[in-house]
């Protein structure tokens, strides 16, 4: 089956306006007759729930944490892009569109990306109106900084806490609607399944994490905004509760999964320092505005950084990519760091780190200026490592950070399961094979504030929706299946903890499906994952009972899904016999070790349909057509 992205016809720049005009409208009095479930209260879900309620729909919003304000989006540091062109440095909607398509290595849908660039400006307007304290210059106007993959300054920021401030903005809008009675909030709830009735998504089953009770909720449409699946690697920069469960359960109920192997490894994270480590910490990409990346020229040079003279330092990004320098896109920066370390030039105890040096910037601008820009990041670095980055260069290494893959959605953000919409990092739509910095916040909020409010109306108008209730058979059956699985997890009573198995899965994925992949490794990984999964179901130990607050049980359910999903990732990576963006198959590289695309055979979205636990998923292709940009070998030289 070839997938239809439902991209509207007409010139690129007019598609979205035309589509908005053509979408049927739900009349204001009728909106209150529709119930909508929004799972997730991060930037995407929080903004969607608030906006849908503002329009008059009845919204139920769900999240795992004890408050919507704690969603993983809160941790985003560096900034959010928009095509405002306030600095007058040549930016435009077209340039933001082009940079994003190119940054994604030409594996995203043109029309979606263009729409994203179009609405980017409204997001900044909205944020300022909500009281987000963005950074400003002395004249009182908004300040911008640069991010990787772009030669203009288009990133808006609130110190190193941009995600926090944007999320608190969405949370305040959501809270206002809760206060007005238009949103009912369900915190400490984990969605464990989607309920399908008559071929449409009509509700969800959640576990109340405090009491352990299973609850069913019915609605006219379900919106998933449950974030990314980076924690399949165990160690990542994602928050501990980030998971694939919601998306994977939807996949098992008929939503196709697109490009699961497209994961982003972020170049600037604090290196791993011990086996007990529970997560990795990002140092914002904005640091690459002023920090210079280098390693010693000579492999095995163990001198302290200040003892290594200028002439014996290798500023490999600046040398290799003179026009973008330290601001090359993430995939390029990460791969180069790995390459240097593979050559024995890595620094630190483990040899798996490179320097990010602020010495020159401090000399040039003074410590005050650097402190104002990055003070909180430097502070965080010092807290974790006990080293002072004002005095010695930071040590950084790539870490898993973001997942471009996700549930397949059409232009309306609807999955292949009718009535199930997917927003934010949970969908696959806008970033192709590599996401540019400061674009995830933009996408999550674009989806939530400015896209779904229109497109969901079109679905509700055009669809015959029979009455359903949470006591229907479809709900009871789903609840029963969920309960069986939970009971099974608690009954195994084996010898290995959930985290122990998760950590092992993470290593398999990092070694074989991480920064660089090859066919042999991928084939090996599949077998290893299958073995580990079998072991999990025979030998995991989940303490406690079902009817209590049980964090081990929560994790066990998530890891069980990661163990299935990991195999899908590996199969997807194996099927894509090219390199593009974050997917680097060593068998396909240029002479200069850059990713070598195969546009003739792989210029498509790979989408996978679940066919049963013991059957291979079925492959579906959405060909990507580029009518407005020319496919080129990405060059940042």
């Amino acid at each position, binding site marked *: 089956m070839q997938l239809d992205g439902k991209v509207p016809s007409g010139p690129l720049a007019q598609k979205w306006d035309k589509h908005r005009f053509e979408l049927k409208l739900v009349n204001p009095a009728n909106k209150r007759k529709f119930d909508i479930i929004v799972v997730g209260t991060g930037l995407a879900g929080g903004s969607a729930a608030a906006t849908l309620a503002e329009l008059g729909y009845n919204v139920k919003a769900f999240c795992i944490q004890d408050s919507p304000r704690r969603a993983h989006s*809160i941790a985003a540091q560096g900034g959010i892009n928009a095509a405002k062109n306030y600095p007058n440095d040549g930016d435009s909607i077209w340039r933001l569109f082009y940079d994003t398509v190119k940054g994604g290595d030409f594996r995203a849908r043109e029309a979606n990306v263009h729409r994203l660039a179009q609405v980017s400006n409204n997001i900044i*307007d909205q944020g300022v109106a909500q009281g987000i304290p963005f950074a400003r210059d002395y004249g009182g106007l908004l300040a911008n900084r640069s991010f990787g993959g772009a030669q203009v300054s288009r990133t808006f920021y609130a110190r190193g806490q941009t995600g926090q401030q944007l999320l608190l903005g969405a949370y305040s809008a959501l809270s206002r609607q809760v206060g007005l009675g238009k949103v009912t909030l369900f915190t400490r709830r984990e969605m464990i399944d989607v309920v399908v009735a008559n071929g449409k998504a009509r509700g969800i089953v959640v576990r109340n994490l405090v009491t352990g009770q299973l609850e069913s909720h019915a609605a006219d449409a379900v919106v998933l905004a449950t974030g990314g699946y980076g924690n399949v690697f165990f160690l990542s920069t994602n928050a501990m509760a980030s998971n694939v469960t919601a998306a994977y359960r939807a996949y098992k109920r008929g939503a196709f999964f697109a490009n699961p192997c497209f994961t982003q490894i972020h170049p600037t994270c604090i290196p791993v320092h011990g086996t007990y480590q529970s997560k990795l910490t990002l140092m914002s990409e904005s640091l690459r505005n002023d920090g210079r990346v280098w390693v010693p020229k000579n492999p095995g040079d163990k001198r302290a950084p200040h003892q290594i003279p200028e002439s014996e330092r290798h500023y490999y990004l600046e040398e290799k990519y003179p026009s973008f320098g330290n601001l090359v896109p993430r995939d390029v920066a990460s791969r180069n760091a790995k390459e240097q370390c593979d050559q024995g030039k890595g620094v630190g105890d483990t040899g798996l780190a490179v320097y990010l040096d602020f010495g020159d910037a401090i000399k040039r601008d003074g410590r005050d200026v650097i402190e104002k820009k990055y003070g909180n990041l430097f502070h965080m670095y010092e807290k974790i490592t006990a080293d002072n980055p004002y005095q010695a260069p930071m040590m950084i290494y790539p870490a898993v950070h973001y997942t471009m893959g996700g549930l397949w959605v059409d232009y309306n953000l609807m999955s292949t399961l009718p009535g199930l919409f997917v927003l934010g990092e949970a969908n696959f739509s806008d970033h192709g094979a590599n996401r540019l910095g400061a674009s995830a916040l933009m996408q999550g909020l674009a989806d939530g504030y400015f896209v779904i409010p229109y497109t969901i109306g079109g679905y509700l108008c055009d669809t015959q929706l029979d009455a359903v209730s949470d006591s229907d058979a479809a709900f009871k059956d789903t609840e029963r299946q969920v309960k069986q699985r939970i009971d099974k997890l608690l009954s195994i009573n084996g010898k290995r903890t959930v985290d122990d198995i998760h950590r092992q899965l993470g290593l398999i994925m990092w070694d074989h499906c991480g920064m660089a992949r090859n066919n042999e490794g991928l084939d090996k990984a599949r077998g290893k994952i299958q073995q580990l999964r079998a072991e999990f179901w025979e030998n995991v130990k989940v303490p406690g009972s079902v009817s209590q607050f049980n964090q081990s049980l929560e994790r066990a359910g998530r890891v069980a899904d990661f163990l299935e999903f990991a195999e899908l990732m590996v199969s997807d990576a194996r099927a894509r016999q090219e390199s593009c963006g974050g997917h680097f198959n060593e068998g396909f590289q240029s002479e200069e070790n850059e990713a070598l695309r195969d546009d003739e055979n792989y210029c498509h979205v790979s989408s996978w349909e679940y066919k049963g636990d013991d059957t291979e998923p079925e492959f579906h292709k959405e060909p990507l057509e580029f009518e407005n940009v020319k496919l080129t070998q990405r060059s940042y030289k």
Partner: protein
Amino acid sequence: MSKSINLTLKVWRQDSPFAKGRFESYKAQNISTDMSFLEMIDVVNEQLTLQHKDPISFDHDCREGICGMCGCMVNGQAHGPEKGTTLCQLHMRHFSNGDTIVIEPWRSRAFKLIKDLTVDRGAFDKIIQAGGYISVNAGGAQDANAIPVPQQNAEQAMDAAACIGCGACVASCPNASAMLFTSAKVSQLALLPQGRPEAARRALKMIQCMDKEGFGNCTNERECEARCPKEISIIHIARMNREYIKAAFGSEET
């Protein structure tokens, strides 16, 4: 340099809101000083699990000091001994071999205990729902640069907006007051032109809600400021009080 230390933990264990709580002692052995406090508890929990015992429940998520999910009393101090640090960012290098560490949940009438170190901070959400926002719908905003905001105001608003809603202020206050939390939001929005129209009303509604949720009064103990992991200043309480007085005397609403 990283080294290994051995510790004794005395941890508050309570199965449910209604069960009786008690302290239990655990040995935490071979703890690397590079570990974070939460990683240290992870290690203990792995052992408890393998010994068929119930692991210690505690809230956490980002482990980067920004989500506000973690937090408990460590030797009587919210988030432990380091200034300006959340529990997840507290590293074991601040402890010595042989130390005994007492770990308890936030205790406050407004935060009900769920299990062990986990409490329900839903009352904070209620305070925000009562008025911690600017009433603007998506889609209606004017250009972001239409109203310049003095840099200093934006910076002060950001200082207040840095609050992570962890509850350490309440847990540290002898009156279990939520004034620092509430005032941080009131102050942030009152400092910006966009937030002015509703400033007085906002202060009134949020303070009313705070009282209703069972938080105590502020008697200037300043413990909140001292223990706030984001070092939010009590200046914001003064600013909120000004807005509150304006509202109480200047408007019809009470």
